[in-house]
């Protein structure tokens, strides 16, 4: 089949071409349906790609037939195959949910443009992940970021703070992307190549020079801003709190994940042993900041009354776990990071969607308004509770699988204190999830409030993710085997 060999580029070019078409579809249901088809198409592509990669190894695609390293190469292996699957999968699950959610939160005339921004964001995220060309990454990074700023600002009809949140995100995001592109420039200066694999080869042949180290520092700092590593996370809580619920569910599950993937890709595949800075950076900056993020994020989450903001701070903490696995620089550590990429997307997606269901009915996600909601919206809150348990890391949920591998990675290096800290920060998650359960189930609903269960079109997607939380928590064979292949592919380069 001719289409099969073009899959790596089709899933990026498809949405890219679809975006301008979507912008002229002025009927909102049509725009929504079109977006859904595009997203499901990308999902099927990534499913096929991951299957092919797991069976027969990495796929390399030369754009326009120009040979790498001169031409732009798209390369899919296990580590980005799974990220592609997360991005397109979450997007396809969030879209059915987004229809009712946008109707409740965004003025009708903006819908088709909002879906256009959504497709562009999807394009950008898939592009970042699929490409093997360093400058191409920057272009897609900016496509996804610019559309994200628009998506966040769309929340301004509910709360005007969405505008200042989007503005701050724009400033910090642009600084991050510019740092990244400075790093790419320095790398190009040192190696004369933009193809990731080619840069890695050429770095191996040149003597250790200051330019490469500076490039590494710029790229790491730029990406740390994008992935919201503590203390560069300040844009995240406001952006997630004030964006429309469906946008938050999509972004929280995908945007930071693509940046974490880039961090892994650049640290291992591109720099690998080429920069002597990787190991010292991971040990003295990566792990301490990850731990600080785990605790600062969780503690800040405990004091939040707006539940979306609470989950946003919790995301800062969860990113800490991902960076911690990366910082250990071992196969098991990177496995834990990859698993948590996948698993955290499932749990945060489910949690933010459950809050979206609540918002549609009571027009608030303030904890004081949620008293007794567990009895009035039993299915929605049950989804929230299961998502919450997964976030804590209770067995039979995906959260447990991630924590298990993270703790194994720490034990491998006999870092008992790390294990203690991981468990302690998980206990903090118990506190903030319990606050919600207490309000929702143990308090009486305010008299006179009649609330119906959320509409099915929103409940079903939420429960699809909740089901995935349990399914991949019980049967982790698929995720673990992909994560192992990914980690060996990435870290194997170093050894």
């Amino acid at each position, binding site marked *: 089949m001719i289409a099969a060999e073009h899959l790596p580029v089709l899933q990026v070019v498809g949405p890219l071409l679809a975006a301008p078409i979507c912008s002229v579809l002025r009927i909102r249901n049509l725009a929504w349906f079109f977006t859904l088809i595009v997203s499901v198409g990308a999902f099927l592509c990534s499913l096929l790609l991951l299957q092919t990669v797991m069976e027969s190894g990495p796929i390399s695609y030369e754009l326009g037939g120009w040979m790498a390293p001169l031409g732009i190469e798209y390369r899919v292996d296990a580590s980005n195959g799974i990220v592609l699957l997360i991005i397109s999968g979450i997007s396809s699950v969030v879209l059915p949910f987004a229809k009712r959610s946008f109707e409740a939160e965004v003025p009708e005339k903006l819908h088709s443009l909002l879906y256009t921004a959504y497709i562009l964001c999807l394009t950008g995220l898939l592009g970042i992940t699929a490409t093997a060309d360093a400058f191409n990454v920057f272009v897609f990074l900016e496509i996804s970021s610019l559309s994200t700023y628009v998506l966040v600002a769309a929340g*301004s009809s509910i709360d005007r703070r969405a505008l200042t949140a989007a503005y701050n995100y724009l400033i910090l995001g642009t600084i991050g992307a510019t740092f990244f592109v400075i790093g790419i420039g320095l790398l190009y200066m040192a190696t004369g190549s933009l193809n990731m694999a080619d840069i890695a080869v050429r770095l191996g042949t040149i003597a250790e020079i200051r330019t490469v180290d500076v490039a590494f520092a710029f790229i790491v700092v730029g990406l740390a801003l994008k992935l919201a590593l503590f203390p560069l996370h300040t844009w995240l809580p406001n952006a997630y709190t004030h964006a429309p619920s469906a946008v938050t569910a999509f972004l929280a599950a995908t945007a930071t994940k693509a940046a974490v993937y880039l961090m892994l890709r650049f640290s291992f595949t591109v720099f690998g042993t080429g920069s002597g800075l990787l190991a010292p950076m991971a040990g003295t900056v990566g792990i301490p900041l990850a731990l600080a993020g785990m605790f600062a994020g969780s503690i800040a989450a405990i004091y939040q009354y707006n539940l979306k903001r609470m989950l946003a701070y919790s995301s800062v903490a969860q990113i800490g776990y991902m960076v911690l696995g990366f910082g250990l620089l071992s196969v098991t550590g990177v496995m834990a990071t990859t698993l948590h990429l996948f698993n955290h997307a499932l749990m945060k997606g489910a949690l933010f969607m459950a809050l979206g269901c609540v918002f549609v009915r009571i027009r608030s996600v303030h904890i004081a308004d949620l008293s007794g909601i567990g009895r009035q919206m039993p299915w929605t809150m049950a989804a929230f509770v299961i998502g919450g348990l997964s976030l804590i890391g209770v067995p039979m949920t995906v959260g447990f699988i991630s924590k298990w591998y993270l703790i194994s990675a720490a034990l491998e290096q006999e870092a008992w204190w790390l294990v203690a800290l991981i468990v302690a920060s998980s206990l903090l998650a118990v506190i903030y999830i319990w606050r919600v359960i207490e309000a929702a189930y143990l308090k009486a609903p305010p008299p006179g409030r009649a609330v119906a269960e959320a509409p099915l079109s929103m409940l079903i997607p939420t429960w699809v993710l909740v089901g995935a939380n349990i399914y991949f928590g019980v049967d982790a064979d698929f995720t673990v085997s992909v994560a192992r292949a990914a980690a060996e592919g990435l870290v194997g380069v170093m050894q």
Partner: protein
Amino acid sequence: MLELFLDKYNYWIVIVLMLFGLYIVISRGNLVKKLVGLNVFQTSVFLFYISLAKAEGGTAPILTGKTELFSNPLPHVLILTAIVVGIATTALGLALVVRIQETYNTIEEDELEDLNVAVMKGEQDRIPGAEGEAR
């Protein structure tokens, strides 16, 4: 020292512009001025790419059949893309500033902060536990 400065004067200009830009973004409270700072910052990167492509005595890369020394055209092309990205960012940023001015009636960061913090305080003050509290 002076030689180091003169030999690499293009890179010194880049560094100075970069730091000026970042400083403006951080220190200015006016949202439009911040965007100006961001632009200066991005421009320094454009200059950086362009100057690293320059070959001493090189000409424009046009094939004439004779062997000549060319400047590297690739970074120039890359920067064309980056300039487009910069324009898009500035346009989007300014559009957001317009919307902020319309809804808040100010574009000074500290005033916006005060307005937002006041709303936040209101949210936090609604102590959970008072059931049936009027919304």
